[in-house]
């Protein structure tokens, strides 16, 4: 058993001729909160998408709870069972009710009974503070509510790790905080999280480790205090000054 929840060793990823990830090395300990930031196109989304194998890397090793994700046919399914994912565009199932969105995975993939799955769904809808929306369709909810449903949907699989791929980037400004509040709570409860975001206030509050990426590389990483007060690289200084101006 590995001591790390996630371990990426010398990971390379190409999209045809374009190298999206260059020798990525990253470890996440159980219970650790890692925030990944960087300019767009820097490869930060690709990092989280490689962890649960929505993208396949070409070389290097990725282990989740000690299981090598690319090693064999069953490994990807085993890893996905323990890793939840929250997308920028929510990706809720529009033809199903909120309740059905939450129970589909537990019932079909985990074999829970409908009653158990619904009980679990209610628990997590409570947790993201929208228990009253269970019977609505995603299209009837605001963006912030939809993203909270998406978080609840991931939690229903009771994952050991939660990945967030720019969870607030598609939201109207007034809805960002309701989603971040839920994420802060999850962090406080000890969930292992990897969060790609530009929300630096959130990062300061919850991150144990900051990772700055540019051009497919991890340029800088470290504890948030040092990262925000005294960034070492030019590129990181420039990026922080750009997004912290406002």
């Amino acid at each position: 058993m590995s001591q790390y929840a996630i371990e990426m060793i010398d990971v390379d990823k190409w999209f045809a001729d374009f190298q999206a990830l260059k020798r990525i090395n990253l470890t996440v300990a159980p219970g650790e909160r890692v925030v990944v930031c960087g300019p767009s196109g820097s490869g930060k989304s690709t990092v989280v998408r490689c962890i649960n194998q929505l993208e396949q890397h070409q070389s290097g090793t990725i282990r989740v709870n000690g299981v090598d994700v690319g090693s064999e046919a069953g490994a990807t399914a085993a890893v996905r069972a323990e890793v939840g994912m929250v997308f920028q565009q929510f990706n809720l199932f529009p033809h199903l009710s909120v309740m059905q969105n939450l129970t589909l995975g537990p019932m079909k993939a985990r074999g829970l009974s409908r009653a158990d799955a619904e009980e679990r769904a209610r628990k997590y809808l409570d947790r993201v503070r929208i228990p009253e929306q269970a019977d609505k369709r995603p299209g009837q909810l605001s963006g912030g509510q939809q993203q909270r449903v998406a978080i609840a949907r991931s939690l229903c699989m009771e994952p050991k790790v939660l990945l967030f791929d720019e969870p607030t980037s598609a939201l109207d400004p007034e809805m960002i905080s309701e989603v971040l509040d839920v994420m802060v709570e999850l962090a406080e409860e000890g969930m292992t999280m990897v969060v790609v975001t530009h929300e630096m206030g959130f990062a300061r509050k919850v991150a144990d480790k900051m990772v700055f990426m540019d051009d497919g590389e991890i340029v800088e990483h470290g504890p948030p205090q040092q990262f925000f007060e005294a960034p070492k690289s030019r590129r990181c200084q420039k990026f922080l000054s750009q997004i912290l101006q406002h």
Partner: protein
Amino acid sequence: MIRIAVLFSMLVLVTGCSSSATWGWYVINPMTPQGWVNVRFLINGMGNTILISVIAAVISICLGLVVALPALAERRWLRIINRIYVEFVRSIPLLPMLFWVFYGLPIIFKSMGLNIPIEPFWGAIITLAISDSAFTAEIFRGGIQSIARGQTEAAQTVGLNYFQTMRYVIMPQAIRRILPPLANQFIYIVKMSAFASVIGMQELTRRANELVVTEYRPLEIYSLLIVEYLVLVLIISAGVRWLERRMGSDERGR
């Protein structure tokens, strides 16, 4: 009811067209005994036209789905298999294919030591279904590809496998977009089923041909034949619109 409908469509044509020398509606005048016998003879082909079309459409839809899925695969050779099937089947005209199935296929069966006769009924269904499946496959492919990739990814992250993802997430959404072109395709099958007449299938067109031979009144009989197809297609269109309305309201969820 049928008598009145036929009479009405005759009236429309008669008032719209020329002299009594051209037209001899008595041959299918439902108000005379012989005319009514003739009309019933023609309309009785309706059952077979509907039966052939429905069975062929069901087979075509199943086959089309099976053919479409490899087109969505990551592996190149699976996509190539799909392409070969679609391009090959799509390029064969219906009539030659019907002849090949009806007259040619039994010879192949016989050479393999199998004694499987191809009756007109199944010959027509097999031909229509295979010929149509190339088009339904393309319709399925388009419909499934139009569902955003994020839906598949979300389904995978909640642990669904390929078939569960298709069954519970992709197809329920795709079917709403697939239905209108699929209905179009069904109307096409109904019309193409007329070709079954040339291998002796007793459907609408065959009946009309047979009556023309005995009555020598092609203009009136084929006019009624056209009206029969028109009625059939209008009924299908109405049914599809009803289905679309039902599913449309479902998507908006209100």
